[in-house]
Every structure is written in C-alpha cells, then in structure tokens.
C-alpha cells in the first residue's frame, strides 16, 4: 500500500509542481483567460497517456524497451527546453504589469500562450506513459488476475491525489507572496527542477544505450538515501534526484544549472532593483484584445 502510494506520489509530483506554478503565475499576473487552455492541455495529456497505456497494456502490441526509454528521454529533453523558456518568459513578462503595456505584450505573444500550454502538456505527458502503465498494472491487479486485491490501486491513486494536493498548496502559497519575490524563487526552483529532468532524460538515453556511460557513477549514496523512503520519493519526484548518479548525468546537471541559473538571477536582480511601480500611462490606450 505505502510502496504503491509513494510511486504514485513520486510520478505525480513534478507535473503537479510545474502546473501549479504556471497557474499561480497566470493568476497573479492577471492572465486568467489562459487558464482554460492550460487545463485543456493537462486533460489532453492525461487522457492520451491513459489511452496509450491501456493500448499497450491490454492491446495486441507492446512497446520495446528501447522505444519506451527513447520516448521518456526524448520528451524529457524537449520538456527542459520548454520549462527553461517559460522561466525566462515569466521573468520577461513580469515587468509588464502595467495594464497597457501588458496588454500589448500579450497581444504580441499569442504564440507564447500556446507555448505555456505545451509546457503543461509536457510536464504531465513526459512521465505520463510510465505512470499510466503503472496505474493500469494496479487496476489489473484488482481484476481476477490471480492477486485479486485493490490496495495497490488505492495506494497509487492516493499518491497521485497527494501530489495534486501538494501542487494546490504550492499554488495557495505562491499567490499570497509578492510577485517579484514569487517569480525569482519559483523561477530558480524551476531551473533546478528542469536540470533534474535533463539528468533524468540523459539517464533514460543511457539505459537505452543511446548514450554511453551507464555504469560510470559520479556518486552512489543509495546506502544513505534508501529509495523506498518517503523523502527519497519526494527528492526523486521534485528534483529527479537519484541516489546513483552517472558521471554524464552530473555533468549535464551542472552544465545546465550554472549558466541558466546565473543568467536568470542576474536578470532578476536587474529587474528588481529599479522596482518601478506600475504606473498605467493614460496616454495611449489601445483597446486590449483580451476581454476581462
């Protein structure tokens, strides 16, 4: 029960975090009109994952191991690109909080809106297939397939639900702090999350032998951080921290975090210092596109 609960929590956590931060940002920066699209993207990703998982579980065809790893690894690396873009987009648009200016930014960045949707889709869909396969396995255990028991399914669903609740709590917390603080912290946090996703993707590709060096470990703390514990599940779920990390994973992590975080924090500091109060200029009132 607990073990399956932790798997559900672990698999659901990262998606819940990314989506809740994204939603909090849109709410805070007064772009609620984009929320419906985000939820649509999330729902689509969930349904596609579940459908694809069901097809592979119960259908006539399975997926080869290499293909599964390639999808996981490939999507991870694409997701990193999008999350990175979102962090900088948030930072850039956070400046345009004066109503007019912002309206113009939004009008000019319809493409960005779809980009955000894609972030949500990737956050959910990246591990969606693995999670779906796991969920279908738990549901199959409830059927008459020998071990007729419904506790695994309950555990898995409760774990996913906990991830959603944690995401919601992050959202509640996030919308109550001031915006510049909010996006500096969440931005930095997302950079670290994205680095974890990158390292994870690298590991997948190493397992599929698409990349070498699966057995060259940078460190192994599996005797200290037992992966069966709740904190290990949290570490893996949030930061994709694995007790056994390969050299290539570590290099990729550092090579991503150092420049991106530096760029982001330098930019954030530059933006916070002027602390320009949002003064809606009444001179040019262009009709805003988005009806509010």
């Amino acid at each position: 029960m607990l073990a399956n609960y932790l798997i559900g929590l672990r698999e659901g956590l990262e998606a819940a975090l990314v989506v809740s931060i994204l939603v909090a940002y849109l709410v805070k920066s007064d772009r609620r009109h984009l929320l419906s699209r985000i939820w649509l993207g999330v729902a689509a990703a969930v349904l596609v994952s579940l459908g694809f998982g069901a097809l592979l579980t119960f259908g006539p065809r399975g997926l080869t191991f290499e293909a599964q790893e390639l999808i996981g690894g490939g999507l991870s690396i694409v997701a990193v690109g999008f999350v990175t873009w979102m962090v900088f987009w948030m930072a850039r648009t956070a400046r345009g909080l004066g109503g007019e200016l912002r309206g113009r930014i939004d009008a000019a960045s319809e493409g960005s809106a779809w980009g955000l949707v894609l972030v949500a889709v990737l956050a959910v869909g990246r591990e969606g297939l693995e999670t779906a396969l796991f969920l279908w396995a738990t549901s199959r255990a409830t059927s008459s397939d020998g071990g007729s028991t419904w506790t695994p399914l309950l555990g898995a669903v409760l774990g996913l639900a906990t991830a959603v609740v944690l995401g919601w709590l992050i959202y509640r917390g996030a919308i109550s702090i001031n915006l510049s603080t909010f996006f500096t912290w969440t931005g930095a946090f997302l950079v670290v999350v994205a680095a974890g996703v990158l390292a994870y993707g690298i590991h997948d590709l190493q397992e599929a032998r698409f990349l070498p060096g699966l057995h060259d470990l940078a460190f192994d703390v599996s005797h200290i951080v037992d992966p069966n514990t709740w904190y290990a599940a949290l570490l893996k779920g949030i930061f994709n921290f694995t007790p056994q990390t390969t050299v290539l994973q570590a290099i990729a992590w550092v090579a991503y975090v150092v420049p991106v975080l530096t760029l982001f924090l330098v930019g954030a500091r530059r933006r916070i210092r002027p602390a320009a109060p949002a003064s809606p200029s009444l001179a040019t009132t262009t009709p805003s596109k988005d009806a509010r």
Partner: protein
Amino acid sequence: MTLRHLTAVALLVSALAACTSNSPSGDAKGDERTIAVTSTDDGCEVSTAEVPEGALTFKVKNAGTKVTEFYLLGEDGLRIVGEVENIGPDLARDLVVNVPAGSYTTACKPGMVGEGIRADFTVATSKGSTVAAGDQATVAQAEKNYAAYVKDQSDQLLTKTTTFVDLYEAGKDDEARELYAQARVHWERIETVAESFGDLDPKMDAREADLEPGQKWTGWHRIEKDLWPQEAKDYTPLTDAERTTFGDDLLKNTKTLDSRIQKMSFTVDQIANGSRGLLEEVATGKVTGEEEAWSHTDLWDFQANVDGAKVGYDGVRPILMDNGNSALARQLDSRFAELQDLLDEHKKGDGFVSYTDLSKDEVKELSDAVNALSEPLSKLTAAVV
C-alpha cells in the same frame, strides 16, 4: 515553435514504429517464450532459465513488500537489454523484449537498490536442450562457492588496502611495509579475475618494467618503489601530496574493483581457466622475482596465486570425479601438494623469506614444480565442461 511540435510528433511516430507484438496473454504455460517471474523481498524466481530466441514476455509479479524492478541484462551483467520499473507490491507488469540467442542475466531488484538478485538466463538458437556437464547440482554448487570466495577475497583486499593507504599517507612507512605483502595476497589470490578488468589492472598492478610509452605509473608497485627505494638509482621520494594522490587513486580503484566483483558470477570453465591462469602468473612473474622488484616479497604473491589456483581446482574437483576423470584429479592433488611442500621450506614467521635470499638452485626447484603442476592443470578445463 512548429519545429518543436514536429519533434513531438516525430517522437510519437517513431514510438509507434517501435512497437512489438504482445504475446497472447492468458495462459502463460502455453507459450514457451513467456517467462513468469516472481519477485519477493529476498528472492527472484524465474520459471525457466532457458527459452528459444524471439520476442520474450517476462510476466513479473511482485509478491514482496517492497517496490521491485526487473532487468534483463547482457552476459556482462552491465548492458540493459530490457527493464521494467515501478512494480509495487501485489502488482504484475510485463516486460516485452526481442532477444537474440546468447547468455543473459536476469535480476530482480527489490527495494530498488543494489545489484539485484541475479541469475543466469540462456536464450537458445534452437529448441535443442544442452547436455549438462557433470551433475547440474554439483556444477551450481562449485560456481556458487567460487563466487563467494572471490567476493570474500575482494572484500578483504579492500579492508587491508584501506588500512595500508592510511598508513602510507600518514608516513608510517614501517607499518605500511609490514602490511604491503599481506594486503597484496588478496589481490594475487584472485588475480585472474582482477586482471579481467582491463581499465583497472594497468592502473593498479603495473610494473615499472612493463609500462607502455606514455603510460602513467600508478598503483601498488609505484608505492612499493617509494617504500623500498634502496636499490633505485637517483630516486626522488614522493612528497606527502604525491603520496596522497597515489594512495587515494589506488583506494578508489580497489573500491571500484570490489563493487564490480560483488556482482560477478563464474562458470565452471571460467573457474578452471582461472586456476590455470594463476599458475601462469607464477611462472611468468613470481618465480622470476620480477613482480616485486623493490620489496622482494614475490613469495607471498607466489603462495597467493597457488592458493587461488587450489581453491578453483578444489571447487571443480567433484565434477572431475563425476566425469570419470579421477586419474587427472589424483595427479593434480599430488602436484599441488609437492609445490606446497617446496613453498613451505621458505616460510619465515607469518610470511616468507625475501626473494633475494633464494639461491639459483632453489629458484629452479620452484620453477620445475610450477611447470609440473601447470601441465596437468592445462587439461582441467576440457575435463570439467
């Protein structure tokens, strides 16, 4: 933007292309390419150890209390052929892989840590069954015992190397010299296994005389020269910082070696070959005094090589008897004993006399005894497989 879309689409399309047929589900017994695996907290039950090549389906059931993973690994125990993760308690998940004929390793990993519970797995070209050499139970026992011996020696090597490196780096040279040969004994007993790792052996056991051009000299013998510099010409002792560098490097490689050895298994022919290989080590390095050029502790290594060879031989000896090769067994028994008697003559305290104390005649005597044992030992592999 669109490019990214395309990437995602391309991934999905390639995913669909990478599909493989699920075997007919339902009755597992009906299909010889379906393997039932039951993973418990301390066991990994694989319904069959040999299947015909093709698309295999491992139906992995977790009957334990911890989350488990199942791997199909290559013969080296490193390459992942297929894996299925996140198998919670009471769950069953399938691994479908296309597997060409060859030797593989199955592994359940309850608790998601460590090397997993491993077993050999054979994928055969045709449906012919292999003829078992000797009694299968005897073979399995021999393989198990030998693996346990190698792992134990490797653990002891790590323990003593740790102490040795500490002493050496702390400048306690007398104590380090004392421990040098005693620690190396564990290396020499399993030298053929240790040498099988081509990336570690040159870093750990290279002799100065055998260095390739441009190869950096590290490991045991580099430190040996620093501890016994008396016969070296124009030798500059290592600084404390250099000692730390070489010491830490040796320890790091010993740790890597130990972690790799812990997941090794050995077949009967490997054991027999290893036994022969250890005797060759004696003939080419120890009996000539080339191995320990500075410390002259060659006889310790000599004895350790013989120990390892004897353990390997003793392990497969019952198979020899099963195969009706008792004559070879008797010959080997007596040759081992003769060599041991000779070695005993040079014992001194817990160890041996320095190689430099041996007369030319004594060296020749030892060399003859080694050759007398090597000859029947070279027939061992063919006799046990």
